[in-house]
C-alpha cells in the first residue's frame, strides 16, 4: 500500500476508533478483549480498504463498526464455543436501590452499575442493537447493515431489548 493510501486509511478510519472501541467493549464485556478485537478489526479493515471508497450510503463509521462487530462475534465463538446467549437475569437486579433520596452520588453509582450490568446480561444480539442505536447513534438502516439483518428485525430486536432493560430499571426503582 502506498503511504498516501495508508494516510487515507488513517484519515478515514482512525477518527472512528473511539466508536469502534465502545462497540467492542460492550460486545466483549471487557477492556482487554475489546482492545484485541479493535486491533484485529482495523487490520481487516485495512485489507478491504482499497475497495472502500465511501460509496453512497456507507459511512466509514458504519463500515468500520460492521467489521468490529463481525470480529467480536467470531472471536467470541472461537474463545467460548459453548457460550450460549446469556439471558437477562432479573433476580440479580432486585433490591439494588431502595428509595430515591439523599445519597444521590451513592445511588447514582449503584444505578450505574446496575443498568450497565443489565446491558451486559442481555444476549449479544440485543446488546449490539442498543449500543449501535443509543451510544453510536446509527440509523435503523445502518444497524441493519452492521448486524446483517433486515431493518424489520432491527426494529423488533431493539424494542425487545429496551423492554428488558426497562424491567431492570423498574426492579431497581422498586427496590
Amino acid at each position, binding site marked *: *500500500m502506498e*503511504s498516501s493510501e*495508508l*494516510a487515507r*486509511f*488513517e*484519515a478515514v478510519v*482512525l*477518527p472512528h*476508533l*473511539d*466508536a*469502534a*472501541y*465502545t462497540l467492542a*467493549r460492550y460486545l466483549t464485556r471487557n*477492556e482487554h478483549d475489546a*482492545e484485541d478485537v*479493535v*486491533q484485529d478489526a*482495523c*487490520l481487516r479493515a*485495512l485489507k478491504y480498504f482499497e475497495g472502500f471508497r465511501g460509496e453512497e450510503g456507507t459511512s466509514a463509521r458504519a463500515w468500520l463498526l460492521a467489521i468490529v462487530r463481525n470480529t467480536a462475534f467470531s472471536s467470541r465463538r472461537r474463545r467460548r464455543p459453548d457460550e450460549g446467549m446469556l439471558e437477562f437475569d432479573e433476580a440479580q437486579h432486585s433490591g439494588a436501590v431502595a428509595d*430515591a433520596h439523599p445519597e*444521590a452520588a451513592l445511588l*447514582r453509582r449503584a*444505578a*450505574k452499575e446496575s*443498568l*450497565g450490568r443489565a*446491558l451486559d446480561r442481555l444476549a449479544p444480539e440485543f446488546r449490539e442493537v*442498543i449500543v449501535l*442505536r*443509543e*451510544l*453510536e447513534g446509527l*440509523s*435503523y438502516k445502518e444497524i441493519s447493515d452492521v448486524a446483517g439483518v433486515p431493518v424489520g428485525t432491527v*426494529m*423488533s430486536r*431493539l*424494542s*425487545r431489548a*429496551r*423492554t428488558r*432493560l*426497562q424491567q431492570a*430499571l423498574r426492579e*431497581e*426503582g422498586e427496590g
Partner: protein
Amino acid sequence: MTHPSFEAQLDAYLDDELAPADARELEAHLAQCQECARFRNERLELRAAIRAQVPTLEAPAALRERVRAAVGAARGVARAPRRFAVRGVWRPLAVAASLVVVALGSWRLALQRTAGETLAEDILTSHIRSLMPGHLTDVLSSDQHTVKPWFNGRLDYSPPVYDFSGRGYPLLGGRLDYVDGRSVAALVYGRRQHLINVFLWPVARRPAATPASRTHQGYHLLHWATADYTYWVVSDLGLPELGDFAGLLAQADSAAGAPK
C-alpha cells in the same frame, strides 16, 4: 393493549424512523391512548437513563498506537512518518470545532453574563437530575386539567399548563422543583425521544424580556419573561425545534390572556 409489534412501531416513532404519514397517525393515537402514552414516557426515561449511566468510551492511547503500528507493519511499510500522524492533527481540529460550537451557542450569554449564570446552572442541574430514574415527574399525566390542579396547595401560584401533543410536543407531567431559592413548577414535555423541562415562576410585574439562549454541556437553555412569569426551558433537543416549542408556549400564554 400494546403488543410487541405495536411497541416496535412506537419505538420506531420515538427513534424518528417512521415515515411522516405514519408518524402523524401514531402521534394522534398517542394523544388519546393512556397506555401508549405511558409506554412512551417509560421509553423516554430509559433513554435518559442509558445516556446517564452507560457511557461511550474513548479508545486508550496505547490501543491507538498499537493500531497504527500494526497497520504499518501489516503493509510492510515503515511506521508512517510523523507528518501522517493523523491523530495529532485530528484531535486539535476536533477540539477547535467543538469550541466553535460552544462559542456559537453561548455568544449571547457572553453579552449578558450576569447573576443569571448561576441560575442557568441551577436550571441545568435540575434538568439533569430530573433525568435520573424516578425523578422526572411527580404527577404523570398528559392531561393539562390533571397537572394544573396538582400544583394547588403545593405552590403559592397556579402555573399555566398547556398540552401541545397536537403539535408533536406532548405534555408528560409535572413536578415540584427547587430553583433560585424557591419552590417552582416544572412541566415536562416530550419531543420524540427528547425531554423538555419547563420551569416557571411568577415575577414582579415588569416589562417582558425577549428570549435568550445558551448552551451548556450539549443542553440548550431558553429563557424569557412574560409580564407575569419567568420561563426557563431546557432540553437536549436541537435549538430550532426548541425555539418552535418556546414559540408555542409564548403563543398559548398570550392567547390565554395575561393571568392575574
